[in-house]
């Protein structure tokens, strides 16, 4: 090889390729930098207090993460509230049962990241400003933000890291926040509801009134929960040998279900952000071929358990169309917290709101021994009462208007 080519080739390798050393270095911990920024008076950090009753867990790189369990501000998910309402309802139902304090209110927007990932019609500053506005609203109420959606969780962790790294981003977001009468605040931890459920799994499982030792569950972990900023995700040596995230699987084991592995566990669900709306042949092909079919044929699963909005929708809604190609699986799909609520005696219609799900779940409830037929009758009567003008039941007292 000519010397000149050798030299330029090596230059190319060292400048463009040979950054392999970074794989031996752990990513920096943004929380350390956040602490420094706070000490310099650059940002206000939303800290957990004793009232939040945090529980400490271990994440992927052996770092500690504190998960607040009480006095929580519900950062709701638009996809959950819009089309899987039993998801947030089950979370709040458990908080009532556990006697925990929370705030669910109207001064919240979504993270807007679904639209961003799908269409690109936003930008980093807009995403960061939306995140900080929601965080600041939680901060001024004195409640700690609990993020319901996996995409909001992943997105907010990215935004937190970028805010910590880039002063120009902090300055620009602060300028915008000042225009709306707010300030730049950053939570000490970004916390997903599945982490909250995970740290309270023993208390939740203690409420169980049904045996599910004969029920086979397969878990679909949400990409934006564990693949975005993976070093922040909870791992536990007793779950999958510590090689996969612990939340969701751990609560199912605590509840006594059989959790079975399947070969496409790592795959995404096929949601795709824009695909679920505009490239639906991809979403349904992927969810059927790579998830539902494998969960049923390999694991003989009775139920697919999820931990995020888009995955629940994609895996549930795309099963019916599969019949056209001979896929006749009818695998019930629901979130971990809905499944746990059912086992703790929550009404399948009024609390778990399974009537909005499209894949049949009735056989699963029969297998568990849950009398859904009576619940259905009660629900239909309740709808008639509401039509006649009855005030709706609420999980919490109505806000003062």
């Amino acid at each position: 090889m000519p010397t000149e080519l050798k030299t330029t080739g090596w230059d190319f390798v060292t400048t463009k390729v040979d950054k392999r050393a970074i794989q031996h270095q752990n990513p920096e911990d943004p929380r350390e930098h956040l602490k420094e920024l706070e000490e310099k008076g650059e940002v206000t950090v939303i800290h957990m207090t004793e009232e939040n009753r945090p529980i400490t867990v271990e994440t992927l790189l052996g770092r500690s993460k504190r998960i607040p369990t009480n006095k929580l501000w519900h950062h709701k998910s638009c996809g959950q509230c819009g089309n899987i309402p039993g998801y947030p309802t089950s979370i709040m139902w458990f908080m009532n049962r556990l006697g925990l304090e929370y705030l669910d209110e109207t001064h919240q927007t979504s993270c807007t990241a679904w639209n961003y990932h799908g269409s690109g019609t936003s930008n980093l500053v807009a995403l960061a400003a939306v995140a900080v506005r929601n965080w600041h609203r939680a901060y001024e109420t004195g409640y700690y933000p609990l993020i319901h959606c996996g995409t909001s969780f992943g997105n907010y962790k990215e935004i937190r890291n970028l805010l910590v790294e880039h002063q120009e981003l902090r300055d620009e977001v602060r300028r915008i926040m000042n225009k709306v009468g707010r300030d730049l605040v950053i939570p000490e931890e970004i916390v997903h509801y599945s982490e909250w459920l995970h740290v309270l799994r023993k208390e939740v499982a203690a409420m169980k009134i049904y045996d599910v030792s004969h029920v086979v569950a397969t878990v679909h972990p949400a990409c934006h929960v564990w693949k975005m900023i993976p070093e922040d995700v909870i791992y536990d040596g007793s779950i999958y040998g510590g090689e996969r995230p612990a939340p969701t699987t751990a609560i199912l084991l605590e509840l006594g279900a059989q959790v079975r592995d399947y070969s496409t566990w790592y795959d995404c669900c096929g949601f795709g952000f824009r695909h679920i709306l505009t490239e639906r042949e991809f979403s349904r092909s992927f969810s059927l071929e790579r998830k539902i079919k494998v969960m049923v044929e390999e694991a003989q699963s009775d139920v697919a358990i999820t931990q995020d909005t888009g995955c629940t929708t994609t895996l549930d809604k795309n099963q019916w169309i599969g019949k056209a190609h001979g896929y006749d699986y009818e695998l019930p799909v629901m979130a971990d917290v809905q499944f746990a609520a059912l086992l703790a005696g929550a009404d399948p219609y009024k609390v778990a709101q399974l009537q909005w799900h499209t894949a049949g779940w009735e056989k699963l409830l029969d297998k568990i021994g849950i009398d859904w037929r009576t619940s259905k009758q009660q629900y239909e009567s309740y709808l008639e009462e509401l039509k006649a003008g009855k005030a709706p039941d609420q999980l919490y007292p109505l806000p003062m208007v």
Partner: protein
Amino acid sequence: MNPTETHLKLDPDEVGIQDAESLLHAIQSDVRYHEAIHGCLNCGVCSGSCPSHRFFDYSPRIVVQTLLSGDAEAVKGMMDEYIWACAQCYTCAMRCPLHNSPGGLVMIMREVAVWRGMEAVHRLLKPYGRVLLKVLSIGNQLTPDMIQPDFFPDWGPKIPWSSTDLAIKRQAIPVYTLQVTNSAWRVSPETSYELYTIYEETGVFRLIEQIDPNLYEVVADMVEELRESVEEARAR
């Protein structure tokens, strides 16, 4: 390009500028770019685990390689259709031994494609109008009244149930904020008011005006109406 020259957001005055070198510069000067690309061994781990690679002519490895090559025309060629196949799952980012984020690079490229008004974007975003209207007006992206059998015939025979007597069925959810049909939850007017300021200050409204003037007209009317009512309420 000076590697230290970065930007937080794209310049709305550059809408319509589509020469390849300028597009590449806009991508490479994004503040996130150098955190998303560190080199590439061509190992293919990203493509091997990519859901879109399985179903489309799309490979995250090719996205990274093309950007590293600096071939501006090739990068521009990918922005038209190729990168829109990415499912944004970030499996590639988690698995890359060099800590690249091909999914993150795709987002930077999509943003540039939209902000520069590339032709394919108009076609790709057309079915997105309903979502954009919701996200711009109330900051929600999916609402109960969007789940209609006409739009989701492939979701099966239970969908008509979901859209019938919707207001009553939403009232039967025992969570006050969810007892609405045109929003995932009740959003206070003050919150929308603040959101509009964010969209205005970050150029999002101006962007929508450029890429979909009809949609912007509808949004602008809603913004004006809400602002008036909030300001009246504040004055009281």
